[in-house]
């Protein structure tokens, strides 16, 4: 029994990470109907940004919440800037082109960042600096609740609630929702579509930045290819929960994490990656709108 509880905990911890990154995917898709493949690479760059930032500002000499906050700030800033750059130079020129072209471009940007990362950062893994120290908060028998796991989980939930409030209760949020319905009508209403899209990318990319620091603390190995697999799984999580739906992203992420943990524990670790795709195909074939999404009617 204890083992099962531990597995569930592990799964939720894993899932919280997917949830955090899935929020970014879902936001961009909601507004642009674009699968931002480059999101996983923005996440990777965030991790390296805080790695180099920590070295530059000697953050490991006094680990604690202060150093952690600075690392977060660095990561979020760099990620936002990168996200903005990608949107401005790669996606905006294709705003009026067929969706397919934008998809191919997104793949191109993702690969470009991956390979540039290998050239610039070097392909061998680096060790993420310990800006915050892990500790055991509670112990129930054999089960230890770690600080990092709690932090990730709390951050994911808080981010989702904050975003939800932002989208539904503020003026900018309303503008984002308007743009997601129709660019033209939103422009007619006086909304600066470019600015709104920029805000969306900033929000999504910042979350990726936060996620990368948290994951870097938990699993200290970082390398230029770290984003690919986790990005893909987070994307599947977003689709699972209903792409474009914020609570759906978190639900999808947690579910994804739980399934993966169960597969590793009771089946075999070799299928953990295939599970993501299996789930994706399953959900797209049987309920494409996801767990919490609504079916859209397409008019001819």
């Amino acid at each position, binding site marked *: 029994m204890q083992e099962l509880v531990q597995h569930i905990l592990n799964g939720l911890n894993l899932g919280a990470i997917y949830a955090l990154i899935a929020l970014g995917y879902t936001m961009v898709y909601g507004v642009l109907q674009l699968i931002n493949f480059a999101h996983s690479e923005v996440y990777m760059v965030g991790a390296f940004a805080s790695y180099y930032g920590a070295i530059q500002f000697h953050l490991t000499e006094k680990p604690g919440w202060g150093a952690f906050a600075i690392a977060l700030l660095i990561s979020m800033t760099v990620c936002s800037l990168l996200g903005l750059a990608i949107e401005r130079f790669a996606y905006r020129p294709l705003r009026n082109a067929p969706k397919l072209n934008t998809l191919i471009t997104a793949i191109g940007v993702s690969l470009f960042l991956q390979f540039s990362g290998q050239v610039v950062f070097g392909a061998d*893994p680096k060790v993420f600096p310990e800006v915050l120290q892990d500790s055991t908060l509670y*112990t129930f028998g054999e089960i230890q609740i770690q600080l990092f796991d709690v932090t990730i989980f709390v951050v994911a939930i808080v981010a989702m609630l904050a975003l939800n409030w932002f989208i539904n209760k503020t003026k900018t949020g309303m503008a984002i929702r308007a743009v997601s319905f129709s660019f033209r009508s939103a422009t007619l209403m006086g909304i600066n579509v470019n600015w709104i899209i920029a805000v969306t990318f900033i929000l999504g990319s910042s979350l990726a930045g936060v996620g990368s620091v948290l994951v870097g603390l938990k699993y200290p190995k970082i390398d230029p290819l770290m984003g690919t697999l986790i990005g893909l799984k987070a994307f599947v999580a977003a689709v699972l929960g209903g792409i474009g739906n914020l609570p759906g992203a978190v639900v999808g992420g947690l579910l994804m994490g739980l399934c993966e943990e169960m597969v590793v524990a009771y089946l075999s670790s070799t299928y953990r990656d295939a599970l993501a795709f299996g789930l994706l195909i399953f959900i797209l074939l049987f309920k494409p709108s996801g767990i919490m999404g609504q079916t859209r009617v397409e008019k001819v």
Partner: protein
Amino acid sequence: MRRLNQVLVAICCVLSFACTKKNEGGGSEAATEIKVGQYGSMTGGEATFGQSTDKGIRLAIDAKNAAGGIKGKKIVLITEDNQGKPEEAAAVVKKLITQDKVVALLGEVASTRSLAAAPIAQQYKIPMISPSSTNPEVTKRGDYIFRTCFIDPFQGPVMARFAYNNLKLRKVAILKDLKSDYSLGLSEFFAKKFKELGGEIVSEQTFQTGDTDFKGQLTRIRSSEPEAIFIPAYYTEVGLIARQTRQLGIKAILLGGDGWDSPKLFEIGREAVNGSYFSNHYASESPVPATQDFIKKYKEKYHETPDGLAAAGYDAAQVLLLAMENAPEITPTAIRDQIAKTKDYQGATGKITINADRNADKDAFIVKVDGKVLKFVTLLGP
């Protein structure tokens, strides 16, 4: 019709240019150089392996060149990075042999990559010496493939004996890497010997190179209550596994093999790896003069203490150089015959004799991890 003719003429012109690029003459004996090829993982998850081995090899070759080379000819080392991928290893070895025309090959550390490259070296009859691949299959690929280290059928039982006799352990769990021939082979030999001695393998879980989360497997292992966990894998994953083991509250001793040998092990694993033991090709505290001599020369050149991979690389290069000295002529076949005759060569990693299977019969050092230092525990022979 006219256009068609124009196009055909153009094609013929282009093709005639291509024809001029035929094979430049064979023969790797350019007037004053002997070309030796090295392939290793300079980048990727096992980057320190390739880089350390490279340093050891260069130490040997530079020293030889400074002393006048072999029969007056300078040795040129051509190094290729295989990025830690087996298909890349095969591709660069092919390039080294067919384009760079090397007379001998040094590499690789990881058995999977040695296995990918060995058939090619055998096909072109170029001798290959692996400094630290321990999977027995490597040298079975052909009579041009050698190694200057021990093999897993020896290393596995060594750790089993150490665990059973020295540490008095009776219940061990195994966590192995499905993507690595080294890991699979070593765990098999360990398990067999441990059970023979009377111990029990309480759990056997798997993971894959590149994984970062092992909590699922470790939770299963925790339920089986082992006294120790044997992790025959490479340092990057081992570091992460060790951390997560302690995060789950598992107090078992961690045991491993020569894949742990890297300065990055402690960097990634931190306190979690302290108090662990693993078998290695050498220990920096070994009193053998040849070892200390090597360490001194290495420190002079690189200003750091060498790890096992560097020592192994050094020895492999020295064996090759010795063979080239003794060979009547610098051709791949003659070099190969001399390598096979290597006997009682005192290397930094111990006494090397190439036996009939083209492997080396050597002792294994057991070391204990204590921060960045690897403390020598004991020496176990066959």
